[in-house]
């Protein structure tokens, strides 16, 4: 790997899967470096993807570190770079640098129940930690996923979610009722309230839009979760990824280096600028 | 030595000037290939920013052409253009850009000959001036 931290390593897109269509389309990409092996990373870390001519975007890695032959990114079409990524084909070349940021403290969680709570594209960062937990299933207590999307069409990883039910509890929700939907209807925090009843010895890991995170945290607090039992990932705009350019800062932290994973106990102490 | 070939961006209104240039084409009146036409809906829709952007991207000259006064498909678009373009002309001249590099004309759908003549003159004028090197991007 190049010593220059700004240097994008060339990577080949090896697979593209459509998750969600429409205006807010989501696709899942797998990439492999052109020269040499993938970098090693931990669950929760991010990578800076470049589309040459368009720029860079920080995306969380959504596969488990145990799958070593590719890096996986699930990307919501949102701006200049992500739109360009959505226009790419199998075999296209992009730039990847990283991995950046801290990771989920999975060692610390051993012996605890894990509750994953996600909304929309927020399932992507959770997916990596969830898959890792499944590999070492015996290290943890009960596993549960609570995931919500706007409509049934906006649910990502549909097939995999179906398969997942054989290994752990999965609760899905959509915002408004649809015919043929026989799971929870309503917002994620409400679903959390109705499904979670065992704060003791549990860890809740949240990822989703900022407003959802906020409400889920207060719901969990009501249910009796301690601040140290709640983890979330924070997203801010990033450019350098290495704690210099200044824009992802929250207080004295740079999300790209000290974040993106925070326990609510830690995040609470920082200014709420995210 | 190879002859210098100027590049001229021409913003032509769809209803008159663009049709005029087409007429020149089908009538076998040859106008120089140095003119790169861009059809716009109306000369009034040409933002001064388009002109600056054309220069920035390497145009040696820029032409804006619309319908004759009174003939505008949108009634008065070309009158608005007239004001805007005069302001732009004065400003470009004021900062020392060669005013000859920027032109406006009225060409109707029937004036293929006028368009051809105009294009030829403009190309020769720019050929004489040489490449535009003042507003080139990256400089």
């Amino acid at each position, binding site marked *: 790997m190049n*010593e*220059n*931290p*700004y*240097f*994008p390593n*060339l990577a080949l897109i090896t697979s593209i899967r459509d998750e969600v269509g429409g205006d807010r389309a989501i696709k899942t990409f797998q990439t492999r470096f052109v020269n040499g092996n993938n970098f090693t990373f931990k669950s929760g870390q991010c990578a800076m993807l*470049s589309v*040459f*001519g*368009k*720029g*860079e975007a920080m995306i969380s890695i959504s596969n488990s570190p145990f799958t070593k032959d590719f890096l996986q990114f699930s990307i919501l079409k*949102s*701006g200049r770079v*992500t739109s360009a990524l959505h226009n790419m084909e199998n*075999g*296209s*070349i992009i730039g990847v640098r990283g991995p950046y940021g801290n990771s989920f403290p999975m060692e610390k969680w051993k012996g605890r129940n894990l509750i994953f709570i996600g909304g929309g594209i927020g399932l992507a960062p959770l997916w990596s930690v969830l898959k890792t937990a499944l590999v070492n299933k015996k290290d943890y207590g009960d596993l549960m996923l609570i995931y919500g999307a706007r409509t049934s069409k906006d649910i990502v990883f549909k097939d995999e979610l179906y398969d997942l039910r054989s290994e752990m509890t999965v609760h899905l929700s959509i915002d408004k009722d649809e015919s043929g939907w026989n799971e929870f209807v309503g917002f994620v925090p409400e679903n959390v309230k109705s499904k979670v009843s065992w704060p003791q010895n549990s860890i809740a890991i949240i990822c989703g839009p*900022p407003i959802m995170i906020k409400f889920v945290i207060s719901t969990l607090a009501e249910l009796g979760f301690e601040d140290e039992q709640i983890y979330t990932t924070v*997203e*801010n*705009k990033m*450019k*350098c990824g*290495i*704690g*210099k*350019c*200044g*824009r992802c*800062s*929250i*207080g*004295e932290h740079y999300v790209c*280096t000290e974040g993106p994973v925070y326990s609510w106990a830690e995040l609470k102490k920082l*200014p709420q*600028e*995210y | 030595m190879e002859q210098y070939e100027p590049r001229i961006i021409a913003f032509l209104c769809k209803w008159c000037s663009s049709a005029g240039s087409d007429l020149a084409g089908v009538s076998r009146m040859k106008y120089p290939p140095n003119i790169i036409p861009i059809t716009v809906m109306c000369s009034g829709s040409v933002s001064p920013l388009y002109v600056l952007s054309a220069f920035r991207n390497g145009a040696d000259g820029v032409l804006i052409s619309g319908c004759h006064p009174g003939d505008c498909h949108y009634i008065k678009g070309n009158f608005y253009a007239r004001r805007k373009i005069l302001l732009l002309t004065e400003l470009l001249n004021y900062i020392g850009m060669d005013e000859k590099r920027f032109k406006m004309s009225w060409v109707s759908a029937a004036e293929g000959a006028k368009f051809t003549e105009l294009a030829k003159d403009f190309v020769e004028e720019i050929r004489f001036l040489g490449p535009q090197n003042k507003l080139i991007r*990256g400089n």
Partner: protein
Amino acid sequence: MEVVIQRDSFPQLLEKLNRYNIWLPRKNGDYWEFKLSRGKESLDKKYTNTKLSPKKFVLPQTETLFQITEGENGKFNIDEKQKKDSLDIVFGIRPCDGVALSHLDKVFLNSFKDPYYSKKRDNTVFIGLACETPPFENCSCTTMGESPFSTKGLDILLKDIGDRYIVEYITDKGKKLFSGFPNLFGKITTKDKESLEKIKKESNKKIKKRVEDLSETTKKLDIMFDSDLWFHESQSCINCGICTYLCPSCHCFDINDEQLSKKPLNVKRVRTWDNCQFPIFTMHSSGHNPRPDKQSRYRRRIYHKFSYFYKTEGEHLCTGCGRCSNYCPAGINIFETLQKVAEYE
């Protein structure tokens, strides 16, 4: 180590160094800036300080990181442009700006060493010029715990004692630069030392301390994030970038791709200065903005300089040069804000 050079010998020194790029402060209209030397010159006695800080020597406003070109069948070639190998010598850095260089070092040379910054830093010799009088009314290095004779961040410091300069070598790089021409330099005498002491004392006296106790400010910042002081202090702010672009310590930047041609793709990845006072600085792609108003942006600037940086690096990210306050279109004075924070109850 200290030696002495006669003021009259200064042009000769420049001549001996002429194979390098020599930058001297020169007046451009109403303000001073660093310009390439035209040969035999002296340091202008009237020189105050440059309006734009010398950070451009190590962090230029616009800098190409590398160029990406598309080769055959979709392959890309990335050319890391690092052409700078020649030595730049900058004369007339005021000690406050030297201190700022030491701040930038902390940002760019720590973990994830920045190769562009580091190369420029290595290939530039910064020669300071101590202030016998504060150049501006808002000068206040002493507030920040520095002095008009500070040597931080510099390679050499010149101290003007009238008809001669006392030359203090700070780094080996500085020492090496002048080592080739010993006959231009003399030994420092007791008299020189005495006049220096006198000037130093005078100079320190002339600089007003603008904040009584800065440690109090830093302490108070911990408890006043939600204070309405930020609203009042920033009410006249107009969201321009003067304070940060002129600041010698501010270093936030942006990275963008600039297309030179589409097919085959030819792109420059460019780093440019950016600015925490612009609303778009922190705006997410969704339109959500963590710092949506000028009050939170102004607060960010003060906190970054006097609380956050202090927590992580043990120093204030401010040198007291006063540029932000001298040139603020709305007349916002950073020292007044700091004093108000210190007095906050």
